């Protein structure tokens, strides 16, 4: 065992919740209203439903190998070399995703909060904290998650309550204006932004891995509720056009808060909420990629890898996009398809190969 820490059922739920809110709360509203117009919230509902179905499939995979991580059982199922190749392919996805997350933090901080600070400084400082958390292990991270969860909930509730008076219901009408197709498109995008498959790297370290599926489902459900409320509020308060034109629509949404000309400019609260959640998402991704690489290469400790990975991730995050335009061109269209390979195709293929093999073995033995 590379990781000696254990996390409880409830801590896994908290981590899943923070992971699901992750980047989505800031980025999803704008892109959903581009794809699905005023029906973005329906698309989120459909996407969350698809997430539940895929988690049930992951649950079947976990039930077969409750004590192994994804990187370990791909080797068990596919044999040594093919399994290692699949693991490394899968790890490259997590690595790239971590770089994207870092870049999103950098982009947001430099465009909205600290415009005069170079993006490198923001990314390096964020990465240092992430690496520190990863080196402390999953148990510490999970406890930190429990400490931060009340802040996230309170900040979100404050935003929701103060935005209530500005709702104008006619902004989500007409519902189903363009039929089902744009909704499916939005749902496809939303589904692929959740990347719940990476959480499979944590499941062996829960104290009852066979029950972990329920924790994943509960965390995803709570997280999806937060995202759906955000998308709904963006449409109801800003309207579809304005949401489309703002890359960080929920940040603009928080700027609308004005209670009696006294309580204003509280958008930093949303930024804090988002920084907490994206911090946990990045920690989980970097942790998963370090642990997975250590398991695939049979190293003694995953902590050795964290520092060089940090350097490579900072470099890669500065390389992946030239500017925000190439981010917009890549992420919604191509990234969701790229993520589908790892979220759906590889786990389903592993599960069916394993089921086939065990049924062949079952026929031979009696």
């Amino acid at each position, binding site marked *: 065992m590379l990781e000696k820490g254990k996390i409880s059922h409830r801590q896994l739920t908290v981590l899943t919740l923070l992971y699901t809110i992750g980047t989505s709360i800031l980025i999803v509203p704008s892109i959903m209203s581009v794809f699905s117009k005023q029906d973005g919230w329906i698309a989120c509902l459909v996407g969350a439903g698809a997430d539940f179905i895929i988690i049930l499939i992951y649950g079947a995979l976990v039930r077969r190998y409750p004590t192994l991580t994804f990187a370990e059982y791909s080797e068990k199922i596919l044999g040594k070399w093919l399994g290692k190749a699949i693991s490394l392919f899968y790890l490259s996805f997590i690595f790239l995703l971590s770089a994207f997350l870092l870049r999103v933090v950098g982009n947001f901080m430099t465009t909205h909060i600290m415009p005069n600070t170079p993006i490198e400084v923001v990314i390096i400082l964020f990465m240092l904290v992430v690496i520190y958390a990863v080196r402390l292990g999953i148990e510490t991270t999970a406890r930190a998650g429990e400490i931060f969860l009340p802040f996230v909930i309170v900040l979100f509730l404050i935003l929701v309550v103060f935005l209530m008076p500005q709702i104008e219901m006619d902004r989500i009408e007409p519902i189903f204006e363009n039929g089902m*197709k744009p909704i499916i498109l939005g749902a496809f995008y939303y589904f692929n932004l959740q990347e719940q498959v990476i959480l499979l790297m944590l499941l062996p370290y829960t104290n009852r891995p066979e029950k972990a599926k329920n924790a994943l489902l509960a965390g995803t459900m709570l997280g999806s509720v937060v995202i759906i409320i955000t998308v709904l509020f963006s449409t109801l308060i800003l309207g579809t056009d304005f949401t489309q034109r703002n890359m960080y629509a929920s940040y603009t949404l928080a700027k609308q808060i004005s209670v009696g000309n006294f309580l204003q400019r509280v958008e930093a609260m949303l930024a804090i909420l988002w920084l907490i959640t994206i911090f946990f998402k990045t920690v989980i991704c970097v942790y998963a990629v370090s642990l997975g690489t250590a398991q695939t*290469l049979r190293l003694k400790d995953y902590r*050795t890898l964290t520092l060089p990975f940090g350097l490579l991730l900072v470099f890669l995050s500065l390389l992946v996009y030239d500017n925000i335009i190439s981010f917009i061109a890549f992420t919604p269209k191509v990234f969701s398809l790229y993520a589908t390979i790892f979220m759906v195709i590889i786990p389903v293929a592993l599960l069916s190969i394993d089921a086939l093999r065990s049924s062949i073995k079952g026929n031979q033995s009696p």
Partner: protein
Amino acid sequence: MLKYVLLVAMTAVLILIEVPSLWKRKQIKDLWVFSSLLFLGIGLVIMRFLNLHVPNPVNGIDYVLRPLAEAIFHYLGGGL
């Protein structure tokens, strides 16, 4: 010049953090993986400092998946 000094200082710190304990515990394989990843990282950073072209993995993914992605988005009638 400052950035090279910073890079060397950072490398020294990373080596000081990891290498002595690995060396003491005789984990030669871990040491190999650590040093090759570190040198890969440093090499790439120096290439960036010199403004050399580094291939971007995102462009490769974009090249492979773009046609299918466009087809799906065209069929489902996405704007953008």
